[in-house]
């Protein structure tokens, strides 16, 4: 989406760690070009049976949300507050000390205060106070509460997809508040409204149907590995012959995402192909569970389980 790739100097010179003059509740969200992904295309969501699949674009003013989006959101939030101690606790105990503020790479790289983990969490915490705490219901803004409006929903979406769930903030938090956990739960709620990104929904659908995020079909996997074997033979003179989907092998080898296809992962793949050959392991590859990454974590806990199933089933 970005027009041309900016130089590092251009990027760092535009960073300003000073927050804007207007308070964060009064600063409307600005969908900056190049900082967000496309909306998930409907077919990807239909593949895994997710609701409210439709054509939509984050930059559009109309997100074609279902009529009762607010009820869906709040009901799902209430359910998750009861299901996850982490979520309930992290909504209650933050003291806003700011230790996490400059630990997030999204904040370090943009200077946008809403990318400070504490403020990213406050975006949803303010909604929590409004609908789930007595003080927030009674005192409103003075208790740090705010209404869930369409603008708030868009702001949540924009900033909750600017989190890689790396959990660095939780290392520095004196109470271990983990933004990754909050991100996962809020994205779960977004999925009920069909608000995923194409970059996540695509790999999820591919992992589900084809066993790897790139969507490589079985014959493509074997022929890709053939290329790697040809290269190895050319350099070392040794022809390695791994097996695929062989029953009775001692070890099922599940490779990290991307090693099958893209550089430099392929070099790693060539390395361990040679290592396994040298060690003489009795192992086999699987085309059905053809990589280890679980893209479900970017979607929902249940989706993660649906994808993990593959690896255990094949074993």
């Amino acid at each position, binding site marked *: 989406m970005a027009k041309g790739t900016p130089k590092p100097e251009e990027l760092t010179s535009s960073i300003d760690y000073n927050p804007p003059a207007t308070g*964060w509740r009064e600063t409307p969200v600005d969908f900056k070009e190049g900082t967000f992904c496309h909306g998930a295309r409907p077919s990807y969501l239909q593949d895994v049976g997710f609701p409210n699949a439709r054509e939509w674009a984050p930059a559009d003013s109309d997100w074609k949300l279902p009529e009762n989006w607010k009820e869906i959101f709040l009901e799902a939030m209430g359910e998750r507050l009861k299901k996850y101690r982490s979520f309930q606790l992290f909504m209650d105990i933050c003291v806003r000390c700011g230790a996490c503020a400059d630990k997030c790479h999204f904040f370090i790289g943009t200077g946008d205060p809403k990318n400070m983990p504490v403020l990213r969490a406050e975006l949803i915490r303010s909604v929590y106070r409004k609908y789930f705490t007595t003080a927030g219901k009674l005192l409103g803004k003075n208790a740090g509460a705010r209404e869930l409006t369409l603008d708030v929903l868009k702001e949540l979406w924009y900033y909750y997809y600017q989190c890689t769930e790396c959990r660095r903030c939780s290392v520095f938090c004196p109470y271990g508040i983990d933004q990754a956990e909050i991100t996962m739960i809020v994205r779960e709620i977004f999925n009920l409204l069909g608000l995923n990104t194409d970059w996540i929904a695509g790999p999820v659908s591919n992992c589900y149907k084809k066993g790897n995020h790139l969507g490589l079909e079985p014959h493509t996997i074997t022929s890709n590995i053939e290329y790697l074997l040809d290269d190895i033979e050319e350099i070392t003179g040794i022809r390695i012959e791994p097996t695929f989907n062989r029953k009775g092998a001692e070890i099922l080898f599940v490779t990290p995402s991307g090693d099958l296809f893209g550089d430099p992962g392929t070099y790693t793949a060539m390395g361990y192909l040679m290592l396994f050959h040298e060690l003489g392991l009795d192992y086999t590859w699987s085309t059905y569970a053809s990589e280890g990454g679980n893209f479900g974590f970017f979607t929902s806990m249940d989706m993660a389980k649906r994808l993990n199933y593959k690896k255990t089933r094949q074993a």
Partner: protein
Amino acid sequence: MGIFFSFFMVILLVLIAYFGIAAAGLHTLFGIIIPYAAFVTFCIGFLLKVIKWGRAPVPFHIPTTCGQQMTLPWINYSKLDNPSSTSGVIGRMILEVFCFRSLFRNLKTGLNNGNISYASDKWLWLAGLAFHYSFAVVLIRHLRFFLEPVPALINTIDSLDGFLQVGVPHFLLSGGVLLIAALYLFFRRTSNPQVRYISLPADYFPLFLIAGIALSGIIMRYISKVDIIKVKQLTVSLAELKGNAPEGIGTIFFIHLFLICTLLVYFPFSKLMHMGGIFLSPTRNLPNDSRIKRHINPWNPEVKVHTYEAYENDFREKMKGAGIPVEKE
């Protein structure tokens, strides 16, 4: 903002106590009824909150890992930063609760001529530690008002706290440190642009309240002295559940007491519950043993999966063409 709002709320509380005693003479209300009500609210509120947290399950093991995981015996692993056993978790929690270990890691990120740089930043850790420890000492010291005879341990803490032996009565370090630390935390909150940006009234109010408590206590001890014998009569009668408020203690004492009661009532409904929450935080109180033990989500839902059979049906011809074994021909 919220600074002025919170400040005036505390001033308002002071005025309520002042007029309640000095003008209306409501000694029983401010000396007996409110303290009991506040104490009960605190205990029940605290308990209910912890029960609410405790009832929510922890479906996944999510300890934050800050070091090498336990894998093979010949690879050194980080026992405290990535604990794999209960003893490691206990060690981690002790360091967290007593030494604020995570805050000790704090770094400051800055930009120097277009380069991102990091520097050590321990001021928050130091101020936080000073604040909490001095508060703890002040609390323990105050037990002398509720216990008769006063335990020797409390007298020892008292004499350590006043070891400077300056002034009459001896200046107690804890009260001064508490006030200074609270003021530093306020200064930090307003001077650091990022922290100022995220601050809510709920952040300023407890700071002003605690500073007010410390200040009124210091005033009472060193400047506008109260009748300490009568104070002890009141506090012991509270502890013995007799509730008997003598007159002529001095208004400043009731201001001090009313601010404390406000803190007790406010506590369970606010961020101050981090005191209980730290013990329940799943990123800190769990061992990282998910590769050693299998943990099953308590509601473990049935999910729809794409089975191997379905996969083979999708790709059977292609698999055969590539020489991959299939289950059904």
